[in-house]
């Protein structure tokens, strides 16, 4: 069955979400992955949005993490402090982040390109809640296209913490122990983080993609899992639900 790279990334991401867990998502692909997971793998995965929506029955993809869809027939219409404090308290299992740059420790830049803070070459929105979610949620994931400018150790601004400078660095900085980056799902492969170095490591390679392609599209030296596998392509069932139920208007999967 044919699929595009956005569909592939969403399907792969959805499989990492365990049932009976809590996830804070934003708009777009992460939300689609969580909705797909709810339909297939994790019926009691509970979706939260940082503006206050808790456990909605999402009627469609939200356009803002604070729009009405995010608390449509929800279990609770709470507040931003409520959701953020639930994260800080250690009750939230997963979150998804995005950004313009990511380094080999999973540190993410969504603030600026350039080195002069007062005159950035390019200014992005900044943290929003991303830094908070990356600090507090047990497992942080990222869905992104992979290229060497984006995957770089020459990161201009660390907006949200990955493993900072390696193992133990989060804890030394004062961040809650045990949390951190978990998976990065790209259009080429799935990456995890090697236990000892906390560096990014390729865990599975997507169908039709070569090692060389991955290396070419990464600005830093990658580790390779000893258990390297081919990524399982989307199943017919995943694609059907994604296309018919999760994103029938192709807002997200049409962006390929």
């Amino acid at each position: 069955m044919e699929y595009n790279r956005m569909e592939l990334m969403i399907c792969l991401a959805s499989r990492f979400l365990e049932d009976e867990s809590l996830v804070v998502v934003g708009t777009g692909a992460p939300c689609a992955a969580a909705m797909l997971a709810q339909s297939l793998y994790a019926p009691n995965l509970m979706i939260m949005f940082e503006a206050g929506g808790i456990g909605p029955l999402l009627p469609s993809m939200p356009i803002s993490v604070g729009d009405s869809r995010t608390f449509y027939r929800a279990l609770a219409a709470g507040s931003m402090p409520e959701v953020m404090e639930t994260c800080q308290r250690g009750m939230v299992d997963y979150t998804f982040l995005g950004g313009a740059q990511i380094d080999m420790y999973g540190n993410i830049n969504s603030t600026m390109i350039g080195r002069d803070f007062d005159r950035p070459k390019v200014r992005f929105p900044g943290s929003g809640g991303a830094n908070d979610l990356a600090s507090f949620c047990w497992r942080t994931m990222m869905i992104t296209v992979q290229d060497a400018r984006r995957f770089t150790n020459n990161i201009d601004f660390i907006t949200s913490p990955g493993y900072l400078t390696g193992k133990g660095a989060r804890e030394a900085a004062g961040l809650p122990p045990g949390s951190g980056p978990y998976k990065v799902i790209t259009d080429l492969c799935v990456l995890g983080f090697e236990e000892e170095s906390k560096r990014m490591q390729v865990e599975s390679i997507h169908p039709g993609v070569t090692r060389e392609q991955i290396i070419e599209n990464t600005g830093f030296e990658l580790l390779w899992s000893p258990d390297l596998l081919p990524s399982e392509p989307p199943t017919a069932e995943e694609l059907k639900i994604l296309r018919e139920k999760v994103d029938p208007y192709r807002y997200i999967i049409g962006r390929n």
Partner: protein
Amino acid sequence: MPEQDFSLKEKKEVVYRPAGSRRLFCNPDADAAREYFHQKSRRKVDKTTTVAEAVKRLVCDGDYIGVGGFGSNRIPTAVLHEIVRRRKKNLGLAGHTATHDFQILVAGGCINRCDAAYIIGLEARGLSKSARRAVEQGEVEITEWTNAALAWRYKAAAMGLSFIPARSMMGTDTVKYSAAVEMECPFTGKKYLALPALYPDVAIIHVHRADVYGNCQIDGIMVSDYDLARAAKKLIITTEKLVPEEYIRRDPERTVIPYYLVDAVIEVPFGSYPGNMPYLYFSDEEHLQEWLQAEQEPESLEQFLQKYIYGVEDFWGYLNLRGGLARLSSLMQQENLVEK
């Protein structure tokens, strides 16, 4: 069981270190705020007025403002337009997911400083070119924070404190460009960040229902407005609907903003347009795209502002230009998931 004791047994010397190097725009001192609140009127009188009058009286050049809702949801658009129309200058802004609100104020050249967590972007809709340009050219001085940090800075103020501890931001450049302080917990010795309380000069919040005294109800998510309403020195409320005091008293657990916090109440139906007002009307995505398009060039933006803000007398004028009730009715259907 062993008689554990987790208290601090003897005095301990510790160090407070600046964790960030940027400017702290607002005085976090709780005593200064208490002085203000001491003299703030508690009069329970009819506070209804017009948007023009409220902005004239309560928003001063140089004020630091906090905006309710969430960027493009339940925002007080009518007041934001009036601030632009009256050409208010040198305002500070709490940029706690500031999207369309930031876009409006920056387009009007009203903002010169911002505590930024999320600015410039309109979430899934794209980036505001003029807001981006203003920040890239240094027209708006920025101190970095996160959404939770700003939410907690409001909370510290709402609690009547000058600071509150938090555990995010640490280890990142976000904190280096903030004005937070690194400290340690007196009980566990663990590293914490101290966030300064944020007492805005004026907050502007759009609600579903209010009585003439300012007792307010909000439906749906609260975002940070419970705390913002309490943190602010002056508070302007716009409301979809005025209701009798009796309506408020019938369901007192629904009151999230009591009257003594409020300085002005204005009934502005559709007052959050083109934002999304929960349970009432969805955001006007077409018009938000029109905004983003108009910002491509300074000239087109100027024309756009002329047409929709400077050139109309009030928010009704804007709504009429945007198609009036016919347009609004279709947004109401969208909000309520009516399929056509």
